[in-house]
């Protein structure tokens, strides 16, 4: 069957099997930032933005995103992404790096909907991302720094 959606800003048509999982389709089409982890929606390694909202691509059939906008880390090239990447590096929030694309997606989704998140809100936004290396502290620091830099204060005061 045919599905059509915007992938990283470009309208694309794909020929898919009715049961094809979005994770597989994206990886087969060069989006290797989308990682294969648990495949049950628990670890967040396969996270993508669907119409601007973070979702796990292993729990979505490709057919479900027909007509939608999908963004992976490959297609994130704006100031917010640059800042996030920079502060993640500076904070030491990347170790093995397997969880990093998923964390970037969650953080991006949070900061586009809430420029001024509290620490609790940052933790809640990361509750779908498993990281086996960092203990999350550096990632939370990096998101706070990014919020400060883009104009929020990350003290949660609206």
């Amino acid at each position, binding site marked *: 069957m045919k599905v059509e959606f915007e992938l990283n800003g470009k309208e694309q048509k794909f020929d898919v099997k*009715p049961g094809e999982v979005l994770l597989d389709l994206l990886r087969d089409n060069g989006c290797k930032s989308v990682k294969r982890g648990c495949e049950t929606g628990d670890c967040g390694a396969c996270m993508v933005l669907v119409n601007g909202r973070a979702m796990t691509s292993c729990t979505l*059939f490709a057919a479900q995103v027909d007509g939608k906008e999908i963004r992976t880390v490959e297609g994130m090239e704006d100031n917010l992404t640059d800042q996030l990447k920079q502060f993640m590096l500076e904070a030491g929030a990347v170790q093995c790096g397997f969880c990093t694309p998923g964390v970037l997606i969650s953080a991006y989704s949070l900061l586009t909907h809430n420029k001024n998140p509290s620490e609790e809100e940052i933790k809640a936004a990361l509750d779908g991302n498993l990281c086996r290396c960092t203990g999350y502290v550096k990632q939370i620091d990096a998101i706070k720094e990014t919020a400060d830099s883009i104009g929020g204060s990350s003290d949660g005061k609206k």
Partner: protein
Amino acid sequence: MLRNVKDYHYPGSLDEALSLDNRESRSFFIAGGTALALSDSSRPVELIDVSRLGLNDLELDRENGNLKIGASTRIQRVVESGAARSVLGGFLSESLEEIGSYPIRNAGTLGGSLVRPFPWSDIIPILSVLETEVFYYHEGNEKTRELSRLYESDFRSTLNSSIIEGVSISLPEEGNTAAKFMKFSRSEFDVASLNLACRLTVEGGYISKAKLSIGARPMTGERIPALEDNLVGKKLTEELAKKSGKEAGESAELRGDEKLGQEYREQLVKKMTEEAITEIMKEVANES
């Protein structure tokens, strides 16, 4: 995951969706797909996408005193909506936020949580203590049924051949009604090993309405009518909270499983019931 999906349909109307479902082949409606993703089957199946049927409104109708939520509304949208936040001092949105993780709530829908709920579902106890009616479409007709009656055995086949259109939650009078949801799980990431929701209406210090629902027993959430009846007419005190905890531990049907033994569950039910009632008592006292 479903490993043998033969076809995927996008019906444009409720009738078209039902007629696709009524054919010989084995089929499932699909909304967010998160529950279907957890099912592991290689039997051939067709999927019927209900997300284009316009079932995603979220409307606070103050005049008729209810909040209507379309079946395809994403759980996170409900969490974030001002309308849901206004139900019982934030009870609805705060307790729905306990479900899964942010990406799961972004994908999962309310309707998808109701037809074949997981035994550990948080949504069932949460909605059970609110006055929730479920709207469904069956054989060309729109019908309604109270949520607590949705899983009665003689209704199963009707439910399995219906499309859930949404739910309507009665807005309780604020001030003298409060509710609490509690969840016990082994880790932040894990689903509930036990969950409990309680709602009390208090008039002049005495309980006039009580609802208590316990889930992940490990069976699906269920109300405890014997305890609810016992609470009505009683003065709301810490002593009553303690006594009710004990009663809940004895009257709820609980079993052991790989997560928790039966005795552990009984102790948890006691403690969680007592705590929920005590917290409601404080909340009601603060507001009056």
